[in-house]
C-alpha cells in the first residue's frame, strides 16, 4: 500500500512520534510580571483592541487586529520609544485554518525591550504596509510578498525581491517542496537554451554524493588516471604527479625536496 502524503504540507515530518508524546510548552508568564511591558500594554490597550498578550522568553507578544497594525506601530514608535522594526515576516498556517500569521519584531533601545506584535490574516487578504513608518519594512514586505504571496497595501514597489521577476510560485509556502516544482527544476535551462534543450541537458542530478569509481567517462581518480572511456579493472598503475615538466622549464632548474627549505612555522 502506498503511504498517504498530505498535499497541504509537503515539508519534512517526523517519521515516528510516540503515541503518548505530549509536547511541552515554552513557559509563558503574565505581562504584569514586568512593569515596563505592563505600562506599554496599557498604553496600547487604551487605543486599540489587544486580543492576547503574554511574555515568552523575555519578550512580550501581543496579538492585535489586522487593520490596527499601522496605528499600533505608530503609537509604539512615537510614544513608547520602540524606534526600530528589527524584523517582520509571516508564518504559513494554511493547512491548519487557512490563515497567515504576521509578526513584527520591535526594539526599544532606550528601554532595552523587545515586543513582538502579531495578527492573523485570511489567505488572499493583504496587509497594511508600514513602510511609511519604518523604511526597513519596504524590503521586508517585498520579501514576504516574494516568499508567501502576501501583498501589502500602499507599498511603493510591490515586486519580488529574492527570486527573479519571472519566477512562479512562493517558495516558503508549506505546499512548495524544498527541491522546487517542475518550473523551478528547469528554470535555467528554459531561460537560457529553451525548452527543447531539456532532453539534451537532462534532469538535475540531486544526489550530490554519487561517485562511481568505475565510470571513467565522468570521474577520474587522482593518481590513477586512465584515458576517458577506458574500462577500469582496479589494477591501474599509480600515476605520480610531478609539478614541473620532466626536464624542467629551461629558465627554472628542477625543484627537489631535499635541497629546498620547508617552512613549518606559520607564525614565523
Amino acid at each position, binding site marked *: 500500500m502506498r503511504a498517504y502524503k498530505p498535499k497541504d504540507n509537503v515539508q519534512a515530518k517526523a517519521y515516528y512520534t510516540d503515541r503518548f508524546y505530549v509536547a511541552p510548552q515554552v513557559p509563558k508568564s503574565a505581562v504584569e510580571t514586568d512593569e515596563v511591558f505592563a505600562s506599554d500594554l496599557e498604553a496600547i490597550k487604551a487605543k486599540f483592541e489587544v486580543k492576547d498578550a503574554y511574555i515568552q522568553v523575555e519578550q512580550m507578544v501581543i496579538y492585535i487586529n489586522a487593520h490596527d497594525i499601522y496605528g499600533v506601530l505608530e503609537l509604539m514608535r512615537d510614544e513608547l520609544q520602540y524606534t526600530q522594526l528589527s524584523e517582520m515576516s509571516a508564518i504559513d498556517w494554511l493547512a491548519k485554518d487557512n490563515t497567515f500569521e504576521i*509578526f513584527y519584531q520591535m526594539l526599544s533601545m532606550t528601554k532595552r525591550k523587545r515586543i513582538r506584535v502579531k495578527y492573523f490574516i485570511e489567505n488572499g487578504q493583504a496587509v497594511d504596509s508600514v513602510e511609511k513608518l519604518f523604511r526597513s519594512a519596504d524590503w521586508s514586505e517585498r520579501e514576504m510578498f516574494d516568499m508567501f504571496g502576501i501583498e501589502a497595501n500602499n507599498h511603493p514597489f510591490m515586486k519580488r525581491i529574492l527570486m527573479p521577476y519571472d519566477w512562479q510560485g512562493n517558495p516558503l509556502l508549506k505546499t512548495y517542496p524544498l527541491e522546487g516544482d517542475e518550473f523551478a527544476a528547469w528554470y535555467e535551462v528554459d531561460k537560457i537554451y529553451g525548452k527543447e534543450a531539456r532532453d539534451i541537458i537532462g534532469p538535475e542530478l540531486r544526489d550530490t554524493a554519487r561517485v562511481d569509481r568505475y565510470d571513467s567517462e565522468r570521474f577520474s581518480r587522482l593518481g590513477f588516471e586512465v584515458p576517458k572511456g577506458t574500462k577500469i579493472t582496479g589494477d591501474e598503475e599509480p600515476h605520480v604527479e610531478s609539478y614541473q615538466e620532466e626536464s624542467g622549464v629551461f629558465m627554472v632548474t628542477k625543484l627537489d625536496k631535499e635541497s629546498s627549505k620547508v617552512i613549518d612555522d*606559520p607564525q614565523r
Partner: protein
Amino acid sequence: MAQVKNRLTPFFENITFDRDDNELVLNFGPQHPSAHGQLRLMLHLQQEQIVKAHPDIGYLHRGMEKMAENMIYNEFMPTTDRMDYIASSSNNYGFALAVEKLIGLEVPRRAKVIRMFLLEINRLMSHLFWLATTALDIGAMTVFLFAFREREYLMDIIEGYCGARLTHAAIRIGGVPLDIQDSFLGQLRVFLDKLPQNIKDYEDLLDSNRIWLMRMEEVGTISTEMALSWGCTGPMLRASGVAWDIRKEEPYELYDEVEFNVPFSDKGDNFARYRIYMEEMRESAKILYQCIEMYEKCEKDGQTELMAHAPKYISAPKLDIMTQNYSLMQHFVLVTQGMRPPVGEVYVATESPKGELGFYINSQGGPYPYRLKLRAPSFWHTGILTDLLPGHYIPDVVSIIGTTNIVFGEVDR
C-alpha cells in the same frame, strides 16, 4: 568554435525605457569585483550624479529558511556557516543560542569561554577582511595584503581548533564539541601582542592618506533617523550616533563579565564607520585577553564540562555513549529523529560583526522547526543604499558599498 546558441534577450529586458529625460541607466553587477558579492545596482544617472538607485538582490538566494524547515535542528548548524561566511562562528552561535533559549539550557562555563574566544576571533577576522576589501576597492593594495596576512594567522588558530578555515561549524547546541588545542592560547597571545602594532600600521597608511580621506570623509552620511528607520545595527548604527551594542545592552554569554568599550561616532559618514571598525578591533583584542584569563581560571577550578547536561535534547559525552546502554539509545534517537524542543517561539538577537543577527524560531514540538526566520543585518544595510546613494557620484558607490560591509550570503540567505 561557433558560439553556443542561447535564448537570452538583450540585457535591459526588464527595465522600461519610456522616459523622456536624459537619465542614463547604469547596471552595476551582479558580477562586479567591488560589489562584495552578487549585488546588482540599477543606477539612474544625471551626468555623474546618481538620482535614483535600485539595488537588486537575490542572486545568492539559496533557500536557507526553507532548508531549515526540512532539517532537524543539529543538521541546520553547518548551513548557518554559509550565511555570513566571513565570520561563520557568529552565525553558529546565534542559532545555538536561539535553540538553547527555546529549550531553556544553561551552557557550562568553560564552553562559554571557548565560545567567546571563537566569537571575538571571528569578529577580528571579519573586520580585518572588511578592511582589506574596502581598502582594495579604494585602491590601497598594501593594506589588502597586510590585513590578509593577519587574517591568515587567525585562520590558523581556528583551523587548529575545528579543522576548517572558513566554514567552522564549531559551536553545538548546548556547548562546544571540543576543548581548545594546546597551542591555542600561545598562538593567540602571540597574535594579540602583535595586533596593536599591526592596527597602527594600517592607520599610518590610511588615516592621513589624502585619497582615503577624500573618498571617506563626508561621503555616505547616514543620519540617526535614517539608520533607525532602515533597521541598521552594528557599526552602521554606531557610526550614526547611537551607542547600541547588544553585547553591552542585552549581554549574552560572559559579556557582562568582561570589560570593553563601545566606540561610537555621530558623524555617520564612511570615515566614521572606518574608525569604528578599527576601534572595535582593539576592543576585541581587549576582550580576548580577558577571555584567556577566564579560561585559565576555569582550568584552575577544574571546570571541564563542555556540553550542557540535558538528556532529552543533547547527546551524552562520547565515553558514555560507548559504555552505557541508555546513552547510546538516546544518542541514536537524537541523531535519527532529532531533538524535539517545546512548543513556542523565540527571537534571539546577537551582535555579529555586521550587526544584529537574529534567529526567530517557531517550534510546534516537532523535530523540525515550523518556521525559522533569519534576521541578517546586511539585508537592511543593502536596503539603505536605496536612500543613501542618490546625490552621490559614481566613484562614491564603491566606497559606500565597502563601508556598509555587506555579505551576500547573509543578504539573500
